[in-house]
């Protein structure tokens, strides 16, 4: 895997107002993300994980700390000029109900002012990758949960970002769809070679797709960083029979249950 460094988070802290008091959500996060990596942030539901993603994706500004990208240091979060390098997949699909599937994808192109036939072709391509090519003119309220989430993924990829950020992308789906989409996510990662940063609360999902897993506790600190060396070949329906997989799974389950108490 090429080990070129994509971005580095230095001393990121985030604090939310609670009346006059404050709630510490992220406490001194230092993280280096290599290009082409699939980083999975795992942990119990709390404010930390999603907030960290929003800071990386340029939705929120960090209270403290800086982000380094292409040797440029950003003190106050990602500037607008660099947002084109990020694609954000939300937990609740977050499609615009008044636009058809295709138009939802076009939204990114319109906002990033990407015109021309190259991009039009890319819209078709992205729909093909997620298998929605013959649903281009359908409105979101006529789609099933899984298909809405696929449209969300396609939309986040359409403007060819360097990094795909996913905030519990399959959290709201039923187990069968969640399982299927995890495999599809693995394929997309292999095919597009994009850097992926994903938040999840399911150990199985993290082990299936990620190349590196970071476990975050309720106080917003990383308490464990594990390299997920389950071989790519083994990551299919039979993954449960892979010894390394079960070993890592037991280890992660123990860590997570410890946080739970």
């Amino acid at each position, binding site marked *: 895997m090429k080990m070129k460094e994509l971005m580095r988070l230095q001393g990121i802290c985030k604090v939310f107002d609670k009346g006059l008091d404050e709630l510490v959500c992220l406490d001194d996060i230092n993280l280096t993300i290599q290009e082409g990596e699939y980083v999975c942030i795992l942990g119990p539901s709390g404010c930390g994980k999603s907030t960290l993603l*929003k800071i990386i994706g340029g*939705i929120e500004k960090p209270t403290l700390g800086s982000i380094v990208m292409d040797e440029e240091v950003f003190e106050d979060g990602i500037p607008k000029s660099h947002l084109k390098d990020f694609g954000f997949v939300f937990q609740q699909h*977050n499609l*615009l109900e*008044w636009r058809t599937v295709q138009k939802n994808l076009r*939204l990114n192109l319109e*906002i990033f002012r990407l015109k021309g036939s190259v991009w039009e072709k890319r819209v078709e391509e992205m729909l093909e990758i997620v298998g929605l090519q013959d649903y281009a003119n359908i409105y979101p*309220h006529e789609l099933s949960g899984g298909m809405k989430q696929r449209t969300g993924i396609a939309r986040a990829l359409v403007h060819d970002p360097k990094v795909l950020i996913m905030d519990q992308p399959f959290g709201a789906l039923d187990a069968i769809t969640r399982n299927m989409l995890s495999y599809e996510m693995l394929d997309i990662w292999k095919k597009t070679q994009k850097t992926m940063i994903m938040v999840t609360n399911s150990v199985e999902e993290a082990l299936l797709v990620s190349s590196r897993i970071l476990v975050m506790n309720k106080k917003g600190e990383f308490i464990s960083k594990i390299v997920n060396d389950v071989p790519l070949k083994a990551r299919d329906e039979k993954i449960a029979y892979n010894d390394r997989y079960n070993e890592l799974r037991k280890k992660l389950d123990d860590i997570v249950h410890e946080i739970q108490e």
Partner: protein
Amino acid sequence: MKGNKKWLNIVSPVILLIVILVCWELYVAVSGIDARILPAPHVILSKLGERFMRDLSGDFLYTIQVILIGYCISIPSGILLAALCSQSKLVTKAITPVLILMVVIPMLTLVPILQLWYGYVMKVRIIVVICQAVPIICLNTLRGFTKVETAKRELFRSMGAGRFKTFVKLIFPNALPQVFVGLKLGCIFSTIAAMSADLAASNEGLGSRISVYSGMLMTDMAYGTIIVVALIGIVLFMIVAYIEKKVVIWIK
């Protein structure tokens, strides 16, 4: 809806209408009530058909103009005002009580004052309709512009969308259902404002025609005119509802 349920949906209101009309006819025939107090439906309709072109068409066009011009001016101005005010939270907080105050004032009370200014012209009633419709349209549109899901705002922030692009591609389309609530209420308020202005000004328009007929005890023509007014109100409302069905297609 099962097959027969759909059919029932259309027929049952019609049956009710027929039942009412028949009872009305029977009551008038049996009780021998004075035609000036309660005329029979067929009398009303025949009188209306007979004398509509001659007597009522002038006032009919007058009232239609008042309502339509007033309403059509109120729509863009109401929405534009809401769009401007929604840009800043402070302005929204300041304008909302003013809007509520204006929505609550029956604008027909302005007729005597406006008549002092402009005399007995159509402009007076158009102003009354505008003053009654703009606040309610603006209030509802403003509510639509300020209530946007945080996830959708985050989506636009994640793409660094500017204020104008966010408004055009997110805030306005997202608020359309609430805007149409305002438009439907605006349409009802416009008809009521026009009619009450007619009654207050009483020289032209269907409203004044009704008070004239009532004064002269020509009850059948008075009822006839009321039916025409009711039709104007309903047709305008249905047009707005139809446009809503065509524009707001994404609600199940």
